[in-house]
């Protein structure tokens, strides 16, 4: 034990500067998060975001330095390391290195847990958040250590890392090509097959496999000394992980047997930190005073990729000559009116004609100028295959419509900053400025899992998934009158009503506009702002054809 502590202290001394930097980065990130929770950043927003982005990058670099540095301090590779000729037990060194790496993994997780606990999270959320943080961070740290184990210096580590990246990239390219060639996508609509769950299962398996394999490689390399075998195992493990990510067949995250949550079930799970409780006079969501909205809603098909796209002209000529682009709707646009209608039923949507939403994908086929000149005015036939996600709207929460009211669902917190209601004849315009904040850390993932909601971004690496997840749609519902208003897009915000105001990070500010007839103060007093979000429930493959297409105007 004393030998273990002796080495541990030595490594801590060696890594004291990176450790200090790590803690500083965490402090800065958390400080920024807390600022984002309670204040509108105003003009300083972009600066704060740049600072946060820089801090995040430094944080990742420091993590790399810690994970790699502790191995390179006593590298098992080579014949020149000081420790190799000293009376060290290899087992003790291996355990000490693993413990050090565990500290590197756990410190940020523990800090996040403390913060989350301060925000009022319960033990279940804390437990899941801890597991989530560990599962997210462990494979990264241990994989870095496993690569470092094959090197004696940072330079060698960098070269090995680059080679593994290149190798993995090539292997991925080959795999993707094989998949496309053999059309492994299942034809036909596969609604309800929980592909999102399967995807998450695969990622989780990869994360666990990478963590376990990397840990074993580190221990094994310290205990015995087969360097070439280590490199082979690291490479094989990277390749196996990639294959697992693509082909893992078992969906163990699916909870098909679970009842689909009803609104009141969801509402019953709301919890507030005292600081975040809605202002007096608002509807207490804990009491379940919510409109009864049935779930699930209808599904939305969102094209994501297309292959075999061909336009054939009467002359027999085919394009594209330089590929094509399928511009998918952004996350913020991935909803359709029909789905919302189904979601808010039996309430009537009052402002259907005013609601604006861009739907579908646009296919762009670039052609060279001379081709365009030659084919201008010609009409041809278009065909191709499309891969699409099938999304469904899911209720995520609501809050009373009053300035300053706040609500949280999962990690998300929404605050109504201002309400402007102006009557213009038979209709009224209600503008609501929202600030959507978040709890720090990867809690989004944790909540997604603990909340039995599809983990659409499980393991995606977004640190602040809550704010980055902008696939929500807001509806103003008056439960007493069974009426609802869809949020429409304000001028100047383009076609992305949910776009973040600063760089897509952290705090999201939204200006929602509800335009509808017959809206008065009494209607607003009884209204609840309800948020839905899109979740992926399946994937589909289909073909498309159009008999009469022509080249559009050139774009510059």
């Amino acid at each position, binding site marked *: 034990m004393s030998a273990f502590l002796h080495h541990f202290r*030595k490594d801590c001394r060696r890594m004291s500067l990176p450790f200090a930097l790590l803690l500083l980065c965490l402090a800065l990130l958390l400080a920024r998060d807390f600022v984002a929770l309670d204040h509108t950043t105003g003009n300083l927003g972009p600066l704060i975001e740049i600072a946060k982005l820089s801090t995040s990058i430094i944080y990742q670099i420091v993590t790399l330095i810690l994970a790699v540095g502790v191995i390179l301090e006593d590298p098992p590779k080579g014949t020149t390391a000081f420790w190799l*000729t000293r009376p060290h037990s290899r087992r003790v060194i291996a355990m000490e290195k693993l413990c050090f790496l565990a500290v590197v993994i756990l410190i940020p997780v523990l800090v996040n847990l403390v913060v989350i606990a301060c925000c009022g999270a319960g033990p279940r959320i804390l437990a899941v958040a801890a597991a989530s943080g560990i599962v997210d961070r462990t494979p990264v740290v241990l994989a870095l250590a496993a690569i470092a184990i094959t090197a004696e210096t940072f330079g060698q580590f960098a070269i090995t890392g680059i080679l593994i990246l290149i190798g993995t990239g090539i292997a991925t390219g080959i795999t993707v090509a094989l998949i496309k060639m053999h059309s492994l996508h299942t034809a036909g609509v596969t609604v309800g097959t929980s592909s999102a769950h399967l995807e998450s299962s695969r990622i989780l398996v990869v994360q666990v496999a990478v963590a376990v394999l990397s840990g074993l490689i580190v221990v094994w390399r310290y205990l015995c000394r087969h360097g070439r075998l280590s490199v082979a195992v690291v490479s094989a493990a990277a390749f196996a992980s990639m294959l697992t990510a693509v082909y893992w067949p078992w969906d163990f995250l699916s909870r098909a047997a679970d009842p689909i949550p009803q609104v009141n079930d969801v509402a019953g799970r709301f919890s507030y930190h005292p600081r975040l409780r809605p202002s007096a006079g608002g509807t207490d969501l804990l009491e379940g005073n919510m409109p009864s909205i049935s779930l699930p809603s209808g599904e939305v098909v969102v094209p994501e990729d297309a292959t075999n796209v061909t336009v054939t002209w009467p002359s027999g000529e085919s394009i594209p000559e330089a590929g094509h682009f399928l511009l998918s709707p952004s996350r913020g646009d991935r909803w359709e009116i029909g789905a919302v209608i189904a979601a808010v039923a039996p309430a009537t949507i009052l402002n259907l004609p005013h609601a604006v939403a861009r739907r579908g994908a646009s296919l762009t086929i670039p052609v060279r100028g001379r081709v365009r000149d030659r084919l201008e005015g010609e009409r041809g036939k278009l065909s191709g295959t499309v891969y699409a996600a099938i999304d469904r709207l899911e209720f995520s929460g609501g809050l009373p419509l009053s300035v300053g009211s706040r609500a949280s669902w999962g990690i998300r917190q929404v605050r109504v900053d201002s309400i402007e209601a102006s009557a213009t004849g038979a209709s009224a315009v209600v503008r609501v400025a929202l600030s959507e904040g978040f709890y720090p850390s990867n809690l989004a993932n944790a909540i997604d899992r603990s909340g039995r909601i599809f983990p659409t971004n499980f393991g995606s690496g977004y640190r602040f998934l809550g704010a980055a997840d902008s696939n929500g749609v807001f509806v103003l519902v008056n439960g007493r009158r069974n009426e609802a208003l869809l949020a429409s897009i304000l001028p100047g915000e383009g076609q992305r009503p949910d776009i973040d105001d600063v760089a897509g990070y952290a705090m999201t500010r939204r200006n929602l506009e509800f335009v509808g007839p017959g809206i008065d103060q009494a209607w607003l007093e009884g209204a609840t702002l309800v948020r839905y979000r899109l979740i992926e429930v399946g994937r589909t493959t289909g073909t498309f054809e159009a008999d009469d297409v022509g080249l559009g105007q050139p774009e510059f």
Partner: protein
Amino acid sequence: MNIIETKQLSRRYGRTEALNGLDLAVPEGSMFGLLGPNGAGKTTTIKLLMNLLAPTSGTARVLGVDSRKLGPAEMAAIGYVSENQQLPVWMTVEGFIGYCRPLYPTWDLALEGTLLDQFELPLDRKLKHLSRGMLMKAALLVSMAYRPRLLVLDEPFSGLDPLTRDEFVRGLLEVSTVGEWTILVSSHDIEEIERLCDWIGVIDSGRLQSAEATDSLLERHRRVEVAGLPPSGGTRVMPGSWIDREESAGLVRFVDSGYAGEDAERLYRETFPGGAVSVRPMALREIFIAQARAQRAIRKGAAA
């Protein structure tokens, strides 16, 4: 008793045979110098002995234990200093000594103090800011302060200026009187080895050419010069122990690697009748060079 013993120890790097059937025995209590030109296999031998490399074939026993099974207990009785060793240069000298001290139950604080005084190491300076000589001294200190049974020095003089080298050797000689050490030192610095070692092993092309006590080695080597020889009708037949032979008109020079006093001198006179024979002792450097030349000639002959 031998503290180091190797049997048919071999090591290959790909197609290159760095060590080829080495049979080496280092007597306990000796100061054994492993001499050899660059690429002879000295460092490979030491790395095999220290379990830094695995042998391709053959065995090595160090302190009576198979080198592949050297564990913390054996390492606590071995000191190792190498020019290539990666020391934790971010530590101060004091921190470095403090880090090593708890690793060795036999650490001798008094000896540590003696060595510190002798080496004049600046305690508060980081290792990375030390000169090469100082760095080697620091490495030597933490390899000696626990009175190891075996001290292995791999090219310790490399890159040291003459003054530092002299101090280093003197320091080694002084501390060698303090306890019962066995020192194995590999180098191609013949003068330092001659000053330091009482046993010499010469290694070349991965093979041990000779290994014996320094006195014996010096005693059995003589430079022989025969002048004023009348022209001979044919090639003279000379014993194989007469190496590094040079012949010119009326003059023959060679090194007798099996000099045996008057018997040998009688043989010279019989072989070269009418010539004036002069015999003189040789320095280790001369012996080493003569042997290296002889080996080269044998290799060339074999290749031809």
